[in-house]
C-alpha cells in the first residue's frame, strides 16, 4: 500500500502508512476532545482529513465556493522585514511590501506593524507608527490592520518596571504575586489603548491584538478590558484578537471576566469572552507538538477550531502560522503542509478565515 508523505511537528518529512495516518488523526482529535471537553471529530470528518492527506498532489485547496478571508500577522511585511522578525530582508520599503501583498499575492486584508512586534516598544515609536500607517493607508484598498502583541511579559524585570511575580510565588507570597500580575496588566492596557488612540487619530481601519494570553490569564484579562475601552471610546475601529495558545494558562488563576474564570479556558470558551468584550474577529491558536506528526497536530487543531466556530457569535479565523493551526514549528514549512492545514481548518474546522 502506498505510503503518505507528510511532516513531523518540526518540519522533517516523514512517511506514514494509511493505518498510521488514521491512528495519528484519531489520537490528535481525542487529545483535543479530552482536554477541551468538546466533541471529537466524527467518522466522516476523520475520513475527510484522511483524504486531504492522501491526495497525491503536492498541494491541495478548498473546493470552489468555500474560499474564506485570509488575515495575517505580518505576512504582508514578510518581504521587507528582517530580524528580529521573521522576514526575507529584501531591501524594499514596507509600503512596497504591502502593495505587493495586496496586488501581487492578493491577500484579503493586510497587517502593518513595528518590527519589534509588541505594543510596549510601539509606544516609544508612536510617531513612526502614525506616519507609517497614514501614508500606507492612503495607498491600500484592502483593510489595513495594525497589529502587535500585548506581550505582558515585557512589563516584568528586567525589560519592564514590575517585579517578576514568580519570585514571590516561590516564597509562598501568593497575594503579592497576584497583585504584581494585575499591576502589569494595567500598565499593558494603558500602552495598548495609547497606541490604539494614536493610530485612530490617523484613520486606523482596524487593530489586531495578536498572541493574546502569552503571559497567562492576567494578560487575557487585561486585553479583554482594553478591548472594551477601544470599542467604547474609538467608534468604527474593528478589533481582531488572536490567541497565543489553545489553553489560557493560569499564571494567576483567580481572575474572572463577567463572572467566568479565565484560567484554563479553551478556544470555544475564549471566543465567548472575546465576543462579550466586543472583539470583531477572533483568532483561534492551537499549538503544535514538535514530537508528533502534522496529521496529529492538524487533527487537534481542527477539533478545537470546530468547537470554537460552532460556539461563536462572531467570525473566527484560524491562526495558521509557525507552530500553530497544525503547522510545523519551522521557518520553512513544507508547502504541502501549509495547504493541507488551510483546507482542513476551513472545510472541517469551519473557520471563517485564516
Amino acid at each position: 500500500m502506498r505510503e503518505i508523505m507528510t511532516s513531523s511537528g518540526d518540519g522533517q518529512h516523514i512517511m506514514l502508512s494509511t493505518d498510521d495516518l488514521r491512528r495519528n488523526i484519531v489520537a490528535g482529535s481525542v487529545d483535543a476532545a479530552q482536554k477541551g471537553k468538546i466533541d471529537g471529530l466524527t467518522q466522516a470528518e476523520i475520513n475527510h482529513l484522511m483524504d486531504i492527506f492522501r491526495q497525491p498532489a503536492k498541494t491541495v485547496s478548498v473546493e470552489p465556493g468555500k474560499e474564506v478571508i485570509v488575515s495575517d500577522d505580518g505576512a504582508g511585511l514578510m518581504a521587507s522585514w528582517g530580524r528580529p522578525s521573521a522576514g526575507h530582508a529584501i531591501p524594499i520599503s514596507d509600503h512596497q511590501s504591502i502593495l505587493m501583498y495586496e496586488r501581487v499575492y492578493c491577500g484579503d486584508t493586510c497587517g502593518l506593524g513595528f518590527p519589534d512586534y509588541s505594543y510596549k516598544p510601539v509606544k516609544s515609536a508612536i510617531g513612526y507608527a502614525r506616519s507609517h500607517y497614514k501614508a500606507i493607508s492612503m495607498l491600500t484598498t484592502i483593510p489595513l490592520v495594525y497589529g502587535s502583541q500585548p506581550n505582558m511579559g515585557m512589563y516584568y524585570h528586567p525589560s519592564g518596571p514590575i517585579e517578576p511575580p514568580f519570585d514571590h510565588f516561590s516564597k509562598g507570597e501568593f497575594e503579592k504575586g497576584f497583585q504584581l500580575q494585575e499591576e502589569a496588566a494595567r500598565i499593558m492596557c494603558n500602552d495598548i489603548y495609547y497606541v490604539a488612540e494614536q493610530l485612530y487619530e490617523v484613520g486606523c481601519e482596524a487593530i489586531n491584538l495578536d498572541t493574546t494570553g502569552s503571559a497567562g490569564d492576567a494578560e487575557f484579562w487585561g486585553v479583554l478590558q482594553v478591548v472594551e475601552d477601544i470599542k467604547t471610546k474609538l467608534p468604527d475601529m474593528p478589533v481582531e484578537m488572536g490567541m497565543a495558545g489553545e489553553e489560557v494558562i493560569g499564571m494567576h488563576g483567580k481572575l474572572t471576566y463577567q463572572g467566568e474564570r479565565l484560567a484554563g479556558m479553551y478556544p470555544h470558551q475564549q471566543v465567548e469572552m472575546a465576543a462579550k468584550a466586543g472583539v470583531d474577529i477572533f483568532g483561534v491558536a492551537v499549538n503544535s507538538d514538535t514530537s508528533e506528526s502534522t496529521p496529529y497536530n492538524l487533527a487537534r487543531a481542527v477539533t478545537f477550531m470546530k468547537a470554537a466556530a460552532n460556539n461563536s457569535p462572531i467570525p473566527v479565523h484560524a491562526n495558521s502560522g509557525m507552530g500553530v493551526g497544525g503547522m510545523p514549528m519551522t521557518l520553512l514549512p513544507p508547502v504541502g503542509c501549509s495547504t493541507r492545514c488551510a483546507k482542513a481548518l476551513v472545510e472541517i474546522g469551519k473557520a471563517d478565515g485564516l
Partner: protein
Amino acid sequence: MGTGDSHGVAIAQIISSCMGGIRTAGDLVAWMQLTCKMKIDQAKESVAQKLNLNLQDLTNETTMSKVRSEKGLGSVIPDHVEYMGIAAKSKIAKLLDVPIHSVNLYEKHLEK
C-alpha cells in the same frame, strides 16, 4: 491572526483557501467581517446582494474585474481603473454601507 510568520506560508495559504483580495471580492467580504462581525457565509451573501451577483461570481476574476472597474472599487492593475487606495475605499464604504474609519477621516479633512 490568520496566516503569517513562516516563510512562504502566506502565498501557499492564499492560493489554497483565500477569496483573492482585490483580484476578486475578497476585500469586500473582509470589510463585512470586520465592520459587521459577519461570519463567512453571511458576509458573502451580503456582498453578493449589494453587487447584484450570485455567490460564485464573488471569486470569478473575470466578472469581478469588470464589476470593480465599473464601480471604482480598485484593481490589481491600477492603471486600468479610475480609483485605487483611499478613493476606492471611499467607493467601497458607500457601496457596502459600512463605516471605514480612514475614509471617514479623509472626507472630514476634505470638508474643512
